[in-house]
C-alpha cells in the first residue's frame, strides 16, 4: 500500500498560498506587501480548483503562487521596507518627544532609498521584454504628466513624468516610429512601433482631471515609481541606440514659457560632432538628423569592424542592407481599384512615415491642440511647425502671415463676416495680427482631423473634405480589423448584407406602412389602390436605387438563391408537411382572392387589386423562399449536431451564441445605416 499522503502538503494546496498567509510569511504589513507586489509584478492566481487550494472554507480568498512568495523572501526591497519601518518608528519617537529637528535629520539622512533597477532587470531580462510591457507605463505616466500637483501627487513626480514623456516623444520624433493615432472621446491613442514591438498608449485631453473619491493615489504612486524607473532605463537605451546623449539638455526657461517638447535639446554622444538641435525656432536649418546620425553610427561601426579585422563579416551586412532596401521598395501594396478595400498597412517603414509631412510648413491656430499636433507632425517628418505666440515657445514661426506656411490647422466654425470682431490696431514691431476668419491665399486650411486621418491612411487625403466649417467624414479607429460577420463602416451596405436582408427589411417597413395606409383610407378604394400601386412602383425604384453600387451582384445572388431553391425543391418533392402547408396556404390565398373578386362583382365594383397583390405576393414568395432555405439549413445543422458528443455540442452552441451576438450587433448597425441612408435620400429628394 502506498504511503498515506498528508493533506495540504502536495498538489494545489501546496502550490497556492492565500494572501494572509503570504503576508504572514513575509512578515510585512499589507500596504508593504501591496507595494512589493506592484514592484515585483506579482499577481494573484486562480487555482484550477479553489476548494482544493484553500485550507479553509472561506470562499473569497485571494491566492498567490507559493513560489512567487518564496522568491520574495530574499528580495532586497523587503529589507528596505523593514528599514523604513524602523526609521518611521524612530521619527515617531522623536516627534513624540518634541524633537522636530532630530526627526527632520533622521528623515533626511537615514531614509533608505529604494532602487528598483534590479527589479526591472529581473522582470524584463531583455530590452524587448521591457518594450512589450510599456503600454500601461506610458498611459499612466502621460496621465500623471498632466495632473496638477497636490498632496498625493508631489510636484517632483509630475515634473519627472513630464520629462520622461517628452524624452520618449523626442525619440519617436527622431526615429519616426509613431505609426497611428486616434482621437477618441477618452483621449488620444497613439501607437508606435519600436524594434518591432507595437506600443499603444492613451493620452488624456488637456483638461483638469476629475477625480472620484475612490481613487487611491498611493497605489498609483507606487506604479508611477516603478514606471518612471522603467521608462528612464528605456529612454536611456533608446537614446543610446541612436547615438544620442541621455539625458538631453533641458532648458528650464523655455519650459517655463510653455515650449514643452522644444525645451529639450538633443545632442549627439560625440562631443566633436556638432550640436544637433531640434525644436528650437532659432536654428532654421533642421536637417534630418536621424538619418545623419544613423549614417555616422554606421560609418563608425564599419570602421570599428574594419579595424578589428572582421572583413569577412563586412560583406554580409552590406548584402543585407541591399536586401533590405530592395524589400523596402517592394513592400508597398497598391490597392487594385480606387474603390477597393484599402488594407491598413502596419508595416509602414520609418522612412515613409518621415516623408509624409516633410515638404510642408504647418501653422497651428490657437484653438487647435498644439501638443499632440506638434508631436504628430514632427514624428511624421514635418520640420517646420509654427503656432501662435500665446501657445508657447519653440515654434518655427509665430507669424501667421508667414508666406512659407503651406498648411494651417484651424478648428473654428465658419462665421459670417459681420459677426467677427474688428482687429485692434497693430502695434509697431509686433507680429501683424490676422483677422480671424480671413484666409490667406496660397495655403491649405484643414481641421485637425485631417492630420490624424492622413497618418492613419499613410497618405495625404483630400484637404477640401476637411476644410474649416465643413462636416467632417467620420473618424475611424485604425485598429479595427474587419472580421467575418462584423460590421465595417468603410464598406458599403450592399457589400456586407446577407442575401435578402435588405429586401426583408424593406418588406417589413412597407408592411408597416401599408397597414397604416389601410387604416387611413378604407372608404376611397380606388384612390387607395392608385396610391398603393404608385407606392409600390416607387418602392421598387427605391429598392433598385438603394443597392445602386452592388446592384448587379445582389441580383445575381438572388438569382442563384432562387435557382438553389428550385433545385432543392426538386430534390425534395414535398419535403415535409410544412412545405405542404405552405402550398395549402397558397391555395387558400387564391381561394380568398377569388372570393373577394366574386364579392366585388356582386357589389358592382371593378376589382383592381391585381398589381398590389402581385407585388406583395412576389415579395412574400421571396421571403418565404428565404425562410424555407433557412429552415433547411437549420435542419441540416440539427442533423449534424445529432452526431456530436454532448461536450462538443455545448462548445458549438457557445460559439454559435457569441457569433450570433456579433452578427446581431452588425445587423443592428446595418439597419441603422439603412435607415439613415434612406433618410438622406428622402432629404435630397
Amino acid at each position, binding site marked *: 500500500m502506498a504511503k498515506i499522503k498528508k493533506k495540504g502538503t502536495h498538489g494545489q494546496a501546496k502550490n497556492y498560498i492565500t494572501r494572509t498567509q503570504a503576508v504572514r510569511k513575509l512578515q510585512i504589513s499589507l500596504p508593504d506587501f501591496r507595494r512589493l507586489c*506592484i514592484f515585483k509584478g*506579482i*499577481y*494573484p*492566481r*486562480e487555482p484550477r480548483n479553489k476548494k482544493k487550494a484553500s485550507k479553509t472554507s472561506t470562499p473569497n480568498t485571494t*491566492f498567490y503562487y507559493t513560489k512567487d512568495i518564496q522568491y520574495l523572501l530574499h528580495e532586497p526591497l523587503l529589507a528596505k521596507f523593514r528599514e523604513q519601518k524602523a526609521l518611521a518608528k524612530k521619527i515617531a519617537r522623536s516627534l513624540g518627544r518634541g524633537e522636530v529637528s532630530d526627526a527632520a535629520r533622521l528623515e533626511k539622512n537615514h531614509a533608505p*532609498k529604494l532602487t528598483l533597477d534590479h527589479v526591472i532587470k529581473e522582470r524584463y*531580462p*531583455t530590452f524587448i521584454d521591457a518594450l*512589450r510591457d510599456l*503600454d*500601461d507605463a506610458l498611459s*499612466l505616466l502621460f*496621465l500623471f504628466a498632466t495632473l496638477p500637483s497636490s498632496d498625493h501627487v508631489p510636484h*517632483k513626480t509630475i515634473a519627472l513624468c513630464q520629462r520622461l514623456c517628452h524624452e520618449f516623444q523626442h525619440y519617436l520624433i527622431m526615429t519616426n516610429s509613431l505609426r497611428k493615432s*486616434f*482621437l477618441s*472621446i*477618452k483621449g488620444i491613442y497613439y501607437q508606435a512601433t519600436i524594434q518591432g514591438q507595437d506600443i499603444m498608449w492613451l493620452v488624456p*485631453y488637456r*483638461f483638469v*482631471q*476629475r*477625480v*472620484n473619491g475612490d*481613487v487611491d493615489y498611493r*497605489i*498609483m504612486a507606487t506604479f508611477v515609481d516603478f514606471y518612471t*524607473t522603467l521608462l*528612464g*532605463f528605456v529612454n*536611456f*537605451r533608446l537614446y*543610446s541606440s541612436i547615438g544620442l546623449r541621455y539625458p538631453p539638455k533641458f532648458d528650464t526657461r523655455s519650459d517655463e514659457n510653455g515650449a514643452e517638447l522644444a525645451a529639450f535639446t538633443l545632442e549627439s554622444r560625440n562631443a566633436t560632432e556638432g550640436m544637433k538641435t531640434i525644436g528650437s525656432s532659432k536654428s532654421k536649418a533642421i536637417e534630418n538628423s536621424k538619418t545623419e546620425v544613423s549614417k555616422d553610427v554606421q560609418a563608425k561601426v564599419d570602421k570599428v569592424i574594419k579595424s578589428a579585422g572582421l572583413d569577412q563579416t563586412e560583406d554580409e551586412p552590406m548584402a543585407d542592407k541591399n536586401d533590405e532596401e530592395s524589400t523596402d521598395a517592394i513592400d508597398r501594396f497598391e490597392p487594385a481599384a480606387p474603390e477597393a478595400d484599402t488594407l491598413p498597412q502596419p508595416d509602414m517603414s520609418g522612412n515613409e512615415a518621415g516623408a509624409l509631412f516633410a515638404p510642408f510648413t504647418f501653422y497651428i491656430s490657437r484653438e*487647435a491642440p498644439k501638443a499632440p499636433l506638434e508631436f504628430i507632425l514632427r514624428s511624421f517628418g514635418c520640420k517646420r511647425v509654427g503656432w501662435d505666440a500665446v501657445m508657447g515657445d519653440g515654434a518655427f514661426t509665430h507669424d501667421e502671415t508667414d508666406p512659407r506656411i503651406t498648411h494651417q490647422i484651424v*478648428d*473654428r466654425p465658419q462665421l459670417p463676416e459681420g459677426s467677427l470682431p474688428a482687429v485692434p490696431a497693430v502695434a509697431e514691431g509686433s507680429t501683424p495680427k490676422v483677422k480671424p476668419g480671413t484666409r490667406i491665399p496660397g495655403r491649405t486650411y484643414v*481641421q485637425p482631423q485631417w492630420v490624424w486621418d492622413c497618418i492613419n491612411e499613410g497618405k495625404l487625403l483630400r484637404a477640401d473634405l476637411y476644410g474649416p466649417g465643413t462636416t467632417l467624414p*467620420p*473618424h*475611424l*479607429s485604425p*485598429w*479595427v480589423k474587419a472580421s467575418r460577420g462584423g460590421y465595417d*463602416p468603410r464598406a458599403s451596405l450592399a457589400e456586407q448584407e446577407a442575401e435578402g436582408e435588405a429586401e426583408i427589411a424593406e418588406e417589413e417597413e412597407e408592411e408597416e406602412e401599408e397597414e397604416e395606409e389601410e387604416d387611413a383610407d378604407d372608404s376611397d378604394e380606388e384612390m387607395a389602390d392608385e396610391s398603393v400601386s404608385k407606392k409600390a412602383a416607387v418602392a421598387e425604384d427605391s429598392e433598385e436605387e438603394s443597392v445602386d453600387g452592388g446592384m448587379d451582384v445582389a441580383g445575381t445572388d438572388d438569382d442563384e438563391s432562387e435557382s438553389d431553391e428550385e433545385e432543392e425543391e426538386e*430534390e425534395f418533392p414535398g419535403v*415535409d*408537411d410544412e412545405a405542404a402547408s405552405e402550398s395549402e396556404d397558397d391555395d387558400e390565398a387564391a381561394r380568398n382572392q377569388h372570393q373577394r373578386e366574386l364579392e366585388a362583382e356582386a357589389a358592382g365594383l371593378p376589382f383592381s387589386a391585381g398589381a398590389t397583390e402581385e407585388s406583395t405576393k412576389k415579395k412574400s414568395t421571396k421571403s418565404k423562399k428565404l425562410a424555407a432555405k433557412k429552415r433547411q439549413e437549420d*435542419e441540416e445543422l440539427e*442533423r*449534424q*449536431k*445529432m*452526431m456530436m458528443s*454532448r461536450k462538443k455540442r455545448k462548445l*458549438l452552441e457557445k460559439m454559435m451564441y457569441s*457569433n450570433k451576438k456579433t452578427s446581431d450587433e452588425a445587423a443592428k448597425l446595418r439597419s441603422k*445605416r439603412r435607415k*439613415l441612408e434612406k433618410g438622406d435620400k428622402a432629404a435630397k429628394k
Partner: protein
Amino acid sequence: MDARKASKKRKAITRDVEEEAGVFSGDELSAEDLDGALSDNNNELSGSEEEDSDSEIELIDDFSDEDDEEDEDELDSDEIPSDTEPETPKLSKSTLTDHEPNFRVVKDANGNDRYLYDEINPDDNSDYSEADENANTIGDIPLTFYDQYPHIGYDINGKKIMRPAKGEALDALLDSIEVPKGWTGLTDPSTGKPLELSQEELELLKKVQMNESTVDGYNPYEPLVESFSSQLEIMPLSAAPEPKRRFVPSKHEAKRVMKIVKAIREGRILPYRPPEEREEKDETLINYDLWADEVPRADHVMHIPAPKLPPPGYEESYHPPPEYLPDKKERKEWEQTDPEDREKEFLPSDFGSLRRVPGYDNFVQEKFERCLDLYLAPRVRRSKLNIDPESLLPKLPSPEELKPFPTTCATVFRGHKGRVRSLNIDPTGIWLATGGDDGTVRVWEILTGRQLWSARLSDEDAVNVVRWRPGKDAVVLAAAAGDDLFLIVPPTIAAPEIEKASLDLLDAGWGYAASNPAPSGADALKKNNPPQWIRPSSELADAGVCAVIPLRYVAKSISWHRRGDYFVTVCSGASTPASVAISIHTVSKHLTQYPFRRRLKGGGPPQTAHFHPSKPILFVANQRSIRGYDLSRQLLVKIVQPGARWISSFDIHPTSSTASGGDNIIVGSYDRRLLWHDLDLSQRPYKTLRYHRKAIRAVKFHPGGRYPLFADASDDGSVQIFHGSVTGDMLSNASIVPLKVLKGHKITGELGVLDIDWHPREAWCVSAGADGTCRLWM
C-alpha cells in the same frame, strides 16, 4: 431631654456603684464611720486635689447635677439624702471655713462687692454644652444669703438646688470602702469569678488605650542627633591646595579650537552648510544601460503576462459614423443600468469637431482600475477557440448520397379506434398487419392503404403485438391479445395454394400434440407447466384464427426465428413469474416451452427477446442489460450493457456475423437514448445518440441488409431515420449518419409513435401512432 437622659444614665451608674459599694462594704454603714473615713480619705487625696484644680471643678459640677437628680428621684432612693442631711451644716461650715472661692470679689460701679465667677469650662467629658434648667436661677445675689440653708438656690423649675457635697465627705466615704487590688468590677466569663487585673496588665491596657508602643522602655521622643549639619567645620576633609590647572586655560581645547578655526579659515568647514540636494540627482537620473548584457530568459511556465488593453473601436471615436450613435432607447437603457453592469463604460457620442470634445470624466478612475487589475486581479489563462464553429461540425455525407431513405408520408392507414400498438409488414412486402387498442387485427395493402381483412380477437383487451411469420411459403400471422396468443392465417388475401400451405403448416402440429398427450390434471394445474395449444372458437376460426395458445400472462413481444418454426414471446409484466415470462413456441409441434427457470440477472423483468439472424443465439433484454444465450449449448455467451435505465426495444443487425463483421445491436430505451453496440468491440455502446425529447419505443434495422438503414420511434411523435453501414472490415467501425426526422404522428395521451417496421425490399417504413393511424413513409 438629651441632657436628662444622660443624667439618668449617669445616675444609674452611680447607683450601681453605690449598690456595689454596699455589697462590699456591708449594710452596716454608719454616719460616724463615714465621717471618720471621709476625713481620712480627704487627707489622703488632698495632694492630688491640689495638683489639678480643673478636675475638682468638674467634680463639683458633677455633684451639683447629681444633687438635682436626687431631688427629683427622692422617692426612689432616700438613702443618701437621709444620710447627707445631718451632714449639711457641717459641710456648709467646712465650705465657709476653708472658703476656696470660685469667684473673685470685684467692686462694682456703686462700690459694692461683685462676685465674679470663673467661667465654667465644660470639659470634653462634660455632656453639657450650655447652661440648662439645672442652672441656678437666683440671679446676681451673694451666695452668702443661702449660707444658712442646705440649698444654694433654685433651678429653672423652682426646685431647690442642694448644696453639693464637699470633697472631703465623699473622699471619706470612698476611702472607707476597701477596694481590692486589681478590682475591675467585671466578671471573668471563664471562671465566673470577678476579673482581676494585675498592675502590669493595667499599664498595658492604658498604653493600648493611649495608642502607645507597648514595648517597655520605649521613648518616642528621644532627642535628634544630627549626623550632617550645615555648619562649616573648622578642619576640611582634604587639605590639598587647589591645582593650577583650575586657573590656566586648557591647551588641548585651544588646540581643538584652533583646528576648527583653521578649517573655517581654509573653508573646509562652512559656518552654515546649505541642505544638500544630492538625492534629487541620484534618484531620477539614469546613467547606465540596464540591458547592456542582456540575456534572454524564458518566462516561467506559470507566468501569465498581463493582457493588454484592447484597442479602441469605431464607437469610441470623437466623431463616429452616425450608425454607432445610440438612439433614445439605447441611451435610456444605458443610463438605467448599473455602472458595473454596463457593457461599455461610455456612450458613443458625436462631437463634430475636435474643439468641442470635453475631458473624459472617468479617465483617472479607469487608469486606477487598470492599476488595480494589474496587481489585484487573479490571472487565468483561458484558451479561446478562435475557429469557425462550422469546423466543429462533423463532416456528414450529404443525405443525397445516401438515398434512398423514407422522407415523406405516402399513405395513411386509418381505421383503428384508439392506439395502434403494433404493426408488421409481411415478408413479401405486400401486406401490413396492425393491432390496436380496439382489440382488432387488421391487414392492409401497403401500396393502396386499403384494409383487406380485420378480426376482433378480443373485446376488452388490446392487441399488443402482431408479427408475420418469416418465409414466403406461408402466410401466418402471430398476434398477442390479452393473455392469449393467436396464430392466424388471414383468409382470401393470399393465393389459394399459399393459403393452403399455411393452413397445413399450422394443422400439422395438432397431430403431434395428440401423440404426446396432455399431462394429467394435477400437472396441468401447476403453474409452470407449459400451456397446451387449443383450437379457437368457431367465431374466431371463421375469422381465420387457426390456433390459440393460452399463455395466462400478457405477452408484449413476439419474435420469430428466421426459419419460421419457432417464435419467442415475452410477458414483461412485473407480476409475471420469472419462470414463465419467456416462452418459446414450436409451430410444427404445437409445443410451448419455458427455457428460463429463474429471473434474469441485471435488473427487472425481461422486456423483449430476439433470435440471432444466423446463429442459434437468443438475445433477451431485461430493463438494463441484454444477454445472449446459445440455445444449442445452453450457455450464456454475451452480456451487453447499454447503460440505459430501461430498455424498451432492441434489434440485431440482419447481416450480423455473416459478412465476417461482428454483431451489431441497436437499443432503444425509455430514457431517450438510442445506442449502437458493436458486440465485438465492447459491452458498452459504441455510439450513443440522445436526440429525442421523449422515450424511444421501438428501434428497427432495415431487414435483409439491402439498405443500411435503421429507424427509431419515439413518444415525441417523431421517427428518426439513420444510415448505419456495417463494413466487413474488422478495423473500421460502423458509420452512423442521421438522415431524416419524420414528423407526422400526433401525440395523443403522452404517446407518439409506438411501433415501426421496414419494408423488406424497399427503403420504406411504416409507423404506428398513438393517434390511431399508421403511416407509410417512402
